[in-house]
Structure formats: structure tokens, C-alpha cells
């Protein structure tokens, strides 16, 4: 592993650089193809609304992937990730227009752990709602 962030240089409470992602329908179609998750609610508005959703929603795993960028971009080596967990609380609703949904992800160093590891708490919001809860990553630092 080759994390570029040094454990000794990190303080609890330090903020990681925030990321903003636009999510459009085409992104969900690409993700469906790459991941093999073809659940209809991620690309078909008619079915999404029929099952009680406001519109097509992003795959939870797509949101988890985007949110993880805050940690992997910060640490330098994505292979330094030791543990990554999220709870999906609200869907990311993706309208059929030219902008789609906006996903904003931030992270804060929550705890310094043994073995030069730290845990990072992530906050992800879309449309003013928190879409993830208990989103936490543990990374191995240098």
C-alpha cells in the first residue's frame, strides 16, 4: 500500500476535500451495464413511479462508489481502504432533464486507530436530504 497521507500528520476533525457529482440518467444506464444491476427502478420512470418512488433513483451502490471517492482521492491509493460501510437512507432521485441530481459528499476524520489507520465519517446529501447514514471508511495511512 502506498497512501500518500501520513498518519502523524492527520488530526481528528480534519475535513477531507468535498466532492460534488452530477448524476444523470445516462450515468445510471452505464452503471447498470458495468455492474450487472438492471433493476428497472434505476432506468424506467413508469415502473419507478408504479412502485411508489418519486422518479427513477440511482443505484445505492453507485452512490456508495461516488462517495468513496472523497476517501480514495484523499489517501492517494484506493488499495489503502480497509473497511467501507454505508446505510442507504433516502434515494438519490434522478429526473429526466439536462442536469439530473446533485450529490454532495464530504468527509471528516472521526478517529485515529491503531496500526496507522484512521476512520473517516462521510456525509452525502442530494436535494437537501442525507442519502447515506453511518457512512464510514477505515483507511491505512503511511
Amino acid at each position, binding site marked *: 500500500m502506498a497512501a500518500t497521507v501520513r498518519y502523524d500528520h492527520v488530526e481528528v476533525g480534519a475535513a477531507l476535500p468535498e466532492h460534488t457529482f452530477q448524476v444523470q440518467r445516462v450515468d445510471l444506464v452505464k452503471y447498470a451495464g*458495468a455492474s450487472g444491476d438492471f433493476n428497472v427502478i434505476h432506468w424506467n420512470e413508469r415502473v419507478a413511479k408504479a412502485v411508489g418512488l418519486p422518479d427513477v433513483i440511482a443505484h445505492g451502490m453507485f452512490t456508495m462508489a461516488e462517495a468513496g471517492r472523497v476517501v*480514495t482521492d484523499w489517501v492517494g491509493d484506493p488499495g489503502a481502504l480497509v473497511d467501507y460501510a454505508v446505510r442507504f437512507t433516502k434515494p438519490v432521485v434522478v429526473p429526466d432533464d439536462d442536469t439530473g441530481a446533485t450529490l454532495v459528499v464530504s468527509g471528516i476524520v472521526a478517529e485515529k486507530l491503531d496500526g496507522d489507520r484512521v476512520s473517516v465519517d462521510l456525509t452525502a446529501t442530494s436535494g437537501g436530504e442525507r442519502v447515506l447514514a453511518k457512512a464510514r471508511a477505515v483507511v491505512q495511512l503511511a
Partner: protein
Amino acid sequence: MPIDPSFIGRTYPPTEPYEVGREKIREFADAIRDPNPAYRDPEAAKALGHPDVIAPPTFVVVLSMNAAEQVVTDPALGLDYTKVVHGEQRFTYQRPVRAGDRLVVVVSVENARSAAGNDILTTKGEISTVDGEHVVTAYSTLVARGTAREAKG
């Protein structure tokens, strides 16, 4: 039909080996729009200490979700897949998945219960190389909304 808690602890046979390819990793990285060179350029990955390109952390779901399907779609379990949403996801990594890995998944049922009218299933996928090296464990919780309440009438 509510979910059957007797499934807790049940372990399924290992999946057929999945060979992780560089181009599949690139396709997945493109789909999540992550430009990190460690997912595309073997030299960049080597500079970080990896023998070949590595997969993005959530790439594991390509294997784990597929493997969990044998549980989720088992009619005896009683999970209504049309009502399912993804509740929670966790990965614990021994090392990153990388190109050239030949991986098998052993799925087991961690939890199967009804709560607040929902049926909740947690599966655990142990992902190892065909040589027995543990790589990552995936925990996935699926929630079927309102199905337990409907079952009670």
C-alpha cells in the same frame, strides 16, 4: 409470506471462479467516473505497490450481488424481490481486488428477520482466490418494504 428465519446460518456452495480482467475494471471505473490511474494503468498501480491494476473498492459488488442472487431468489426464503431496496452495504478488505484474480464467493445468510412490517435479509459473501487467499468480505442488507405486514393481513 414473511421471511423464513430458519435460513440464518445457511451457507451456499462456492460460485464458479470469476476472472477479473483489466478491461472490466476499466469499464466499471468509467461507469463510476473515477479517473484514478490505478484502475487503468498497470505502471501506475505498480508505483503504488500493486502487481497489476486494482479494482475500485465497490467493484466487489459485481461478484457479491451475483452470488447472493441464489439466496435472494430462493422461493423458500420468502423475500418479495419486487419490493426490495438496498438497506446497507459493507466491505472489509484484506487487499484490493486486482486484474488476474480468479475469485470465488461463498455466500451465507447472516440474518433474516421481520421488523416494523419489513422483511430484512443480510447476506455475507466471503470472496477468496481459487487458491484460498481471502481478499474481501461483503455484507449486504436488503429490505422488502411492507411485506411482513401484508403477510399478517
